[in-house]
């Protein structure tokens, strides 16, 4: 509790003691009782009365302070002293509770997202180290990070080895080791050794700043439920006030005309009861609080949801479409075998790696990695690239052709097809077939588990899209248990395929597309919710997606859906519960069944319960 809240608590306690004393002395010393009551009422309500007065002076009477003032003063005029003070006390208890709960959630979330670095230790030219504001560090400076400190700015390690804890960024709790030359992200915590880092960007462009930006702006794009509530709040208060006015005057007038006793005080009392329930507080606070909690809870798990408005479609997901490479599979190609080669496997890989030494294709990268030694490009000459087929180059005086079956046909070498799934690189030397190299991508360890979890939470359809061959698509589909797959798609076809699936869905069924965010931006945009995996450090992915999964753990997808469902469920519970209780109170109040006590009790009670319910969203 802050100072303001503590003062309020003291005021409330004092008022309660005073009103109890007033009640006790009611019979014996009426004058003292009245003084005690007045002291109680003013102690707890003076600020409300003061604000109500200022509101009237400004011509802005329709605020809750004014309504509370009217309701309580009205009750007092009718002789209901205790009720007048009690309403004020309960109202203040509600306010205090709201303020404490909101403050606590704010603090919880800022702890969860505790990646904002407070300072950077800049190494100066003379070797000394100075603490500066991270904003002042220029690109290419060297910063020193000691064990236990946060890395303030993205960069590359120059010196030192250590273990980094990236749990605040990715939700991954296992620390990983870093060495000179490794790129490191801001927001990670250095665990063991002192490292110096050459910064690769400014603070504002660093991962930590960008993530914080994203999380903070997320709750600013409002969901449908939030917009509904703010519209409702705008209408609700005036509507209740006018009904109160009508309730105070119409029935007595009707009774008067009908020749019955007018009974003014009963109806005015009932009208005042209306005013007590006229504040839409419970709804107005609990809905954003639930979304805030949901977004915050998700980000603590390394799931960044870019706005409250994506919670609803995420919760309503019915179909999940995956990209294969880099999403279901690791996206790292490795040589899995060499077949039908008459020479040593190493030699064949060496020749292939040399022939492809100028290519930037991931396949060539995996060949070079498998070769493992420094590539001497001087051994390579006359490189010809055939787009979509492969390369022909002269290596150590021999013509080496390296590529798919189309390339083999082009040069007239008789190739042997491979039975295994993966990408096949056929090699022909001086025009005759020399065998092929099988390169495959590996399915992520937990892809199958993620798909099983999706099934178990009721996702009806999972689809895998890939540009790869039928055979490799089938083997991945079998290994992971995805419902269906479409292979050999060109990049543009993926959008068309997603649109086809979208057409078959009804309005409430939502489609999630999960990709690596690198070259599937159009598909991410077309889907109801676009999810980018392993997007940490990739600008374009964070830009294009609605949900960003910081690491590449596929089980975060079912988790994200669960979090969103829980959040949305809480939001609807609160809407129905709060509006329901208010309506019941209004009806009972109008009928005279519920008095002011019941009304204020219900009103504050609903608020407390709704807020407690909302806070649940934070726990994932």
């Amino acid at each position, binding site marked *: 509790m802050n100072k303001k809240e503590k003062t309020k608590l003291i005021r409330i306690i004092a008022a309660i003691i005073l009103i109890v004393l007033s009640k006790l002395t009611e019979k014996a010393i009426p004058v003292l009782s009245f003084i005690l009551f007045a002291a109680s009422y003013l102690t707890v309500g003076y600020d409300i009365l003061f604000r109500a007065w200022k509101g009237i002076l400004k011509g802005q009477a329709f605020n809750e302070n004014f309504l509370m003032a009217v309701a309580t003063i009205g009750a007092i005029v009718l002789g209901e002293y205790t009720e007048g003070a009690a309403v004020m006390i309960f109202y203040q208890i509600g306010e205090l509770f709201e303020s404490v709960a909101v403050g606590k959630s704010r603090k919880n979330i800022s702890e969860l997202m505790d990646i904002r670095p407070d300072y950077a230790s800049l190494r100066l030219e003379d070797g000394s180290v100075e603490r500066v504001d991270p904003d002042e560090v220029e690109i290419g400076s060297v910063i020193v990070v000691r064990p236990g400190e946060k890395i303030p700015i993205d960069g590359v390690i120059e010196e030192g080895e250590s273990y980094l804890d990236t749990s605040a960024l990715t939700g991954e709790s296992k620390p990983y080791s870093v060495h000179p030359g490794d790129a490191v992200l801001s927001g990670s915590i250095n665990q063991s050794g002192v490292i110096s880092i050459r910064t690769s960007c400014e603070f504002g462009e660093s991962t930590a700043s960008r993530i914080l930006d994203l999380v903070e*702006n997320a709750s600013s794009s409002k969901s449908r439920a939030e917009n509904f509530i703010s519209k409702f709040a705008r209408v609700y208060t005036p509507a209740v006030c006018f009904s109160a006015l009508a309730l105070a005057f119409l029935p007595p007038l009707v009774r008067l005309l009908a020749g019955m006793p007018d009974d003014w005080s009963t109806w005015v009392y009932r009208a005042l009861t209306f005013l007590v329930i006229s504040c839409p507080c419970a709804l107005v606070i609990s809905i954003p609080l639930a979304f805030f909690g949901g977004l915050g809870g998700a980000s603590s798990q390394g799931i960044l949801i870019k706005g409250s408005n994506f919670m609803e479609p995420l919760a309503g997901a019915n179909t999940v479409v995956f990209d294969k490479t880099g999403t279901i599979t690791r996206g790292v190609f490795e040589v899995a075998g060499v077949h039908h080669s008459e020479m040593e496997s190493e030699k064949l890989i060496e020749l292939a790696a040399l022939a492809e030494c100028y290519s930037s294709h991931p396949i060539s990268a995996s060949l070079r990695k498998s070769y493992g030694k420094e590539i001497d490009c001087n051994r390579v000459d006359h490189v010809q690239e055939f787009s979509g087929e492969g390369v022909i180059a002269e290596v150590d005086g021999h013509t080496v052709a390296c590529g798919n079956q189309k390339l083999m046909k082009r040069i007239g070498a008789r190739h042997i097809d491979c039975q295994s799934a993966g990408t096949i690189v056929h090699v022909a030397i001086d025009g005759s077939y020399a065998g092929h190299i099988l390169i495959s991508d590996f399915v992520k360890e937990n892809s199958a588990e993620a798909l099983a979890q999706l099934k178990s939470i009721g996702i009806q359809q999972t689809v895998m899209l890939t540009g790869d061959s039928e055979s490799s698509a089938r083997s991945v589909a079998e290994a992971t248990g995805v419902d269906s797959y479409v292979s050999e798609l060109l990049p543009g076809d993926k959008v068309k395929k997603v649109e086809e699936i979208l057409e078959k869905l009804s309005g409430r069924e939502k489609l999630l597309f999960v990709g690596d965010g690198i070259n599937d931006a159009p598909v991410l945009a077309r889907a109801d919710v676009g999810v980018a995996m392993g997007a940490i450090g990739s600008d374009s992915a964070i830009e294009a997606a609605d949900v960003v999964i910081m690491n590449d753990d596929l089980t975060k997808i079912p988790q994200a859906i669960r979090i969103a469902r829980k959040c949305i469920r809480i939001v609807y519970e609160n809407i129905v519960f709060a509006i329901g209780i208010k309506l019941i109170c209004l009806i009972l109040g109008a009928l005279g069944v519920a008095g002011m006590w019941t009304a204020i009790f219900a009103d504050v009670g609903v608020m407390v319960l709704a807020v407690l319910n909302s806070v649940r969203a934070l726990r994932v």
Partner: protein
Amino acid sequence: MKKSYKIEVDCANCANLMEQAANKTPGVKNAVVNFMLLKMNVEFEEGADPKTVMPAVLANCRKVEDECEIFF
């Protein structure tokens, strides 16, 4: 032009009122108040100078909620 300001306000409904008041201020294209973060994101109309618009926004907000504050 978009800018983000820190604000101070006590209740959620007051934050909504501030948002409405800010949106009615000339020079403001769109304003969003985030009560949970105590932030106001203001998108200014073209040619509007935040230095002259923001005092007007604050004045309008004060009309609906006396005890609010915007730090600009």
